[in-house]
């Protein structure tokens, strides 16, 4: 018989404007809460050392790596994922559209995290130069693009609506 007792705790998070409330183990990572409880699989896991940024989301409008946050820490807070930044009727946010226009993605796996990191950047600095963009994306790895087209994607978004709006 198991000697480990499983405790659960209720976590309530407002995800993309919708309240998600689930019983989870206290050790549940926010990224797993989003993927498995909220069933929003756009947020990806790419590492286990907080290096790759594929799991980047906004918590109370600030970029955070959701693999490094416990779901319980997000309890009562607002979380925005890549599914939540479009215009709500199937349209793309300026950052999403920038990635499409400038070929800022190939396999797409790092893309949701990149889009959220870029969205946070533009919310804070609407007119970043190339150096600022590259520095701001230091915590997000892409293995496909070599980053230049991602820089262009951010520049495209900066001149076509900026960070955009979300719930």
């Amino acid at each position, binding site marked *: 018989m198991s000697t480990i007792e499983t405790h659960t705790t209720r976590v309530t998070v407002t995800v993309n404007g919708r309240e998600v409330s689930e019983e989870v183990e206290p050790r549940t990572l926010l990224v*797993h809460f989003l993927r498995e409880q909220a069933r929003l699989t756009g947020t990806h*896991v790419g590492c*286990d050392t907080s*290096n790759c940024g594929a799991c980047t989301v906004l918590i109370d409008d600030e970029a955070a790596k959701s693999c490094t946050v416990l779901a319980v820490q997000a309890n009562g807070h607002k979380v925005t994922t890549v599914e939540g930044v479009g215009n709500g009727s199937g349209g793309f946010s300026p950052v999403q559209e920038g990635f499409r226009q400038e070929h800022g993605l190939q396999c797409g796996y790092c893309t949701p995290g990149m889009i959220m990191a870029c969205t946070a950047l533009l919310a804070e600095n609407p007119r970043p130069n190339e150096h600022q963009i590259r520095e701001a994306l230091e915590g997000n790895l892409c*293995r496909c*693009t*070599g980053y230049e087209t991602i820089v262009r994607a951010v520049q495209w978004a900066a001149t076509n609506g900026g960070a955009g709006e979300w719930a």
Partner: protein
Amino acid sequence: MSLIGAKVLRKEDPNLITGQGQYVDDLAPAGCAFMAMVRSTEPHARIVAVDTSAARSMDGVLAVWTSADIAGLPARPSSLPGMDMPLIAGDAARFVGDIVAVVVATDRYTAADAAEAVIVDYEPLPAVASLAQALAADAPMIHPVLQGNTVFFQDYTEDLSAEFAAAPRTASLSLVNNRCAPVPIEPNVVLADWGPAGLTVWAAFQAPHHLRNTIAAFFGISQDTTRVIAPDVGGGFGAKINFASEIFLAAALSRALSRPVKYTQTRSECMVAMFHGRAQEHKVDVAFDDSGKILALKVQVTQDQGAYPDATGMGLPVLTTAMSAGCYKIPKVAVSWRNVVTNTTPVAAYRGAGRPEASYMIERVIDLVADETGVDPIEVRKTNFIPADGFPYQTHSPLAVYDSGNFAGALDELLRHVDYPALKAEQAARLADPNAKLLGIGFSSWLEIAGFGPPGSLEAFGHLASWESAQVRVQPDGSAIIYTGASPHGQGTVTTFAQIAADQLGIDFERISVRHGDTAVIPQGIGTMGSRAVAVGGEGVKTASTRVFERAKKIAAHLLEATEDDIVVENEEFHVRGTPSKSVPWSQVAWKSFQPLELPAGMEPGSLDATVFQQVPNFSFPSGAYCCVVEIDRETGEVEIRNMYLVDDCGTVINPMLVEGQVHGGVAQGIAQALYEHMQYDESGVPRTATLMDYLVPAAPDLPGYVSGRTVTLNPSNTLGAKGVGESGSVGAPPAVINAVVDALSHLGVKHIDMPATPQKIWSILRGSK
């Protein structure tokens, strides 16, 4: 208007930018269980005992398997007899990461807990962590079947001692081609569901049919009830054509537990479990004259195979030695290679797979000859190039007959972008100013063997064949679906293949869908690797589209009561040439193609559907010329790439935006190998770079912007003229970067620096010179 060469936005993107992509880990079928691995922490050890009792007793644990539980199953496919990689190590573990036990539980956290609870009793054995250790006299042995640790070797193909003795000058170079981890941001992921109706496997994989064929044979089941699906795949870079043991274990456990089993590799597992790339050492001798003309070349390649030789890994030095002369006409070339096992992660395909190693070697040799003779590296290249009118060119290797290229033309195009005299002047001025950063200018003129390939080429690596499949199926409303055996993982194949089909069919790009990655849907297939998707698979789409179009023209001619030869298509309307008013829309032709009463005599309904197994007569040979300009901080040894100029010749460009993306990504991986990445082991065989904290995958601040140019020589082996571009950057970039670094340090007498050119290495050189 032709879409070939048009910058068309990707059909793939709307899903991927909104989080609607579907990667394997996104799938969550009812009852899905989770698999976790217990991996060896020892480089080489006898496994004395595996205590699974604590793990088995945990709530939620469904199975804990050791080697005894897979006794009826074969070893990992693509292994070598006598050196097989067991799915679960039995008597011995042979590298850190070798699977020792497998756990399945109802959720991923419990599976991880249970894996932690498995206790393995190891008796450490002496290990060999490097080629030097493996080849030493009395080296510990990894596989008893071998005498020593050399698996296969090929002695020098020719004795060139007379040529070297007669040559005015000779020089030698020893090179290490550093071991790299592929690091797709999505690691290996698999979901297996073995039900009464058969086995379905969703896998992050580059060649689903290859996997389907292999899984069916592995379990002795029929291919018709074995389905492999590669949905969205988060990068592959060659590593996802290797048969990861986890795929077969997930299927076996799904069968045993009668429920879906999913496995998602952690990154730290991926760093040691996903097969590595490169890991070669070269000994090179070159004979030349005072003008820099190369007279003879001797190359010995030693390939680290890791702990278990893999069929693809065994082929790497074959490719390296086939391409050893690069773009140069060298009168005499002798090559030799050997494959050696070590107690490290197995080595197999990684972007370029054997060919970046060759271009790195020969381009370092060119700069060495320049340095020895005092002839400018540009001139040495031009002196030795195969001339533009020298094709077809039989190389020293029976594998490689170069069919096209213009190497001098690409270098000239590069020099239109690079102000070489100004850079040389700046370099001299900086050298004279002790406070200025050093400047280095490096070139590479490269070519690669790509577009795999002619009949027999992929069979040698265990594939069914070397063609690629394409099916073009017009729907009753006049839209079309393309089915391809190429299985993309970021390349943009859905877009490029729709462009190719739109041109041939005269159907709007927006009304063409491309399906891939599902063995139940696609009529056979090989896969995406070796820069082959467009050159072989795209050509197949063109061939099949042309067949369908010819049949559509027949139907249109019948409906218009005209002769077939007079029928043209414009804006999705078939009409008689010169008489636009006499027309029938594509949608009508498509609709009627299914109605026997509407068809010309002898035509069957449903004929606007063609399947092609596209063959090509030769490999393709993308080429190009790159220039890298580096600045080196004299205090810290840090290298910064100031400029990277890229001229590629990939033949016909289908979509310039996607070609640029492929080049950038390949160059980024090449720069990464040259400056940052090195999978390292300590002397006992323990990996020192097994997380992304220790292994430097470059981020945006670490990489430069790029200036791109282009030359075009057509691929004569297909009608598209396209050569492929997926691996080009990884082939061309490393030598350009290292040539630049060596150039910046050449005033100190530096002849060579091994990759990665880290600040520490360069700082030591600079400090030693003071």
